[in-house]
């Protein structure tokens, strides 16, 4: 009987060790697994490489990991959110290495990683400093940048509903990078608001099929005042 639910956030991030590559879903606060990130912080892992669209804002989530000196490298598209002092100061100190990829390239490289592809050919970034150090190839008379796929040891994903087999449904624009990252990691952990028995989720509604998911943990949705 497959049951991927785990009883706690601590169990959900077991096996996440120093030096690992960790993908973190979300766009700003939307679809960001803040509670799983807190559990990673509590676990004490360091030298992490974080793959995420943003690089943390304020003192929560990825920013908290950076402020506690747990992050060695960030691969992202947009580290310049309004309150990004954590990543900005860590990069200035030379503590955190930053690798910038255009948002669409980042998404597609993660998808390619999950899909077993050797890379992505994209026109995005050609003729700009975003192309520096990257191979350019010509196919059928058009030029493309070759971008390498991204894979991770862990993916921290936030969904809305999941069943015990790990089938996940996302809420509105919570999807963003989450379904892509779920495919691209050796261990995918999903935090959801609701856990369902197998059969309760309509197969036509499933966004992330359970084959991509290793662990499901239920976290009460925080109610904002």
């Amino acid at each position, binding site marked *: 009987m497959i049951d991927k639910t785990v009883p706690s956030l601590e169990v959900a991030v077991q096996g996440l060790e120093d030096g690992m590559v960790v993908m973190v879903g979300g*766009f*700003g*606060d*939307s*679809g960001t697994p803040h509670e799983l990130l807190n559990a990673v912080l509590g676990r004490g892992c360091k030298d992490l490489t974080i793959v995420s*669209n943003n690089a943390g804002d304020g003192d929560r989530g990825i920013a908290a990991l950076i402020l506690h000196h747990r992050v060695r490298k960030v691969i*992202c*598209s*947009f*580290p*310049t*959110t309004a309150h*990004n002092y954590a*990543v*900005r100061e860590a*990069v*200035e100190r030379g503590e955190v290495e*930053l690798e*910038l990829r*255009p*948002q*669409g*390239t*980042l*998404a*597609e490289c*993660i*998808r390619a990683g999950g899909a077993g592809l050797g890379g992505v050919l*994209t*026109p*995005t*970034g*050609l*003729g*700009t*400093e*975003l192309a520096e150090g990257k191979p350019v190839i010509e196919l059928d008379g058009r030029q493309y940048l070759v971008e390498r796929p991204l894979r991770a040891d862990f993916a921290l994903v936030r969904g809305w509903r999941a069943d015990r087999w790990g089938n996940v449904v996302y*809420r*509105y*624009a*919570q*999807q*963003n*990078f*989450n*379904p*892509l990252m779920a495919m691209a990691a050796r261990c995918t952990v999903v935090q959801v608001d609701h856990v369902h028995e197998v059969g309760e989720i309509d197969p036509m509604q499933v*966004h992330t099929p359970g084959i991509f998911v290793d662990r499901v943990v239920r976290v009460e949705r925080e109610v*904002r005042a």
Partner: protein
Amino acid sequence: MSRGWSETEIARRVLADLWEGAYVNLGIGMPLRLNELLTPEMGIILHSENGILGMGPAPPPDRRDDDIVDAGKAHVTLIPGASVFHSADSFAMLRGGHLDVAVLGAYQVSMRGDLANWKRPGQRLAGVGGAADISVGARRVWVMMRHLTRDGEPRLVRECTFPLTASRVVKRVYTDMAVIEVTEHGFRLLETAPGYTAAEVAAATGAPLALPEGVGG
């Protein structure tokens, strides 16, 4: 008396060139002025890079939903007919040439249509976000910006001195002084804002400006 177009008037001028059924992406900053002018009857469908097609205006404070935000992470709404999707699909819409128009802000635009809008020279930490994919992929890239910098320097230039977001992509530029088209041969004046002559616009433009018939000096 002030001359030229206000930001809202520039937005209104851009809106006049859009059409019912157009799929449009609005960049952060001045282009968001368009969102304030749109009504459902116009039938313009807004795309947001984080995975929304059919984005509506900001909700009242008591109707905010943290899972319905725009590219600037501000709360928005979904109009009837809206859809949501993941980031790879969102950028497939952009890069794949499905989006009709992207209206973007910019630091500089060159006479070849090069776009510089993500990073200042020497800026150490900069974020490109979706700007590079959007400007490479949209069928039409229109820029909305002030004609001159705060120091009075032209933003329409021969060569961008700011780092490029994409090369040879901008088709049209809407400023407080004029509407300018980017052609194979460089900038071409389409229209001047009230109070400006073509000669004044040309003098404020850092590259040759072709004047079409009927736009007087």
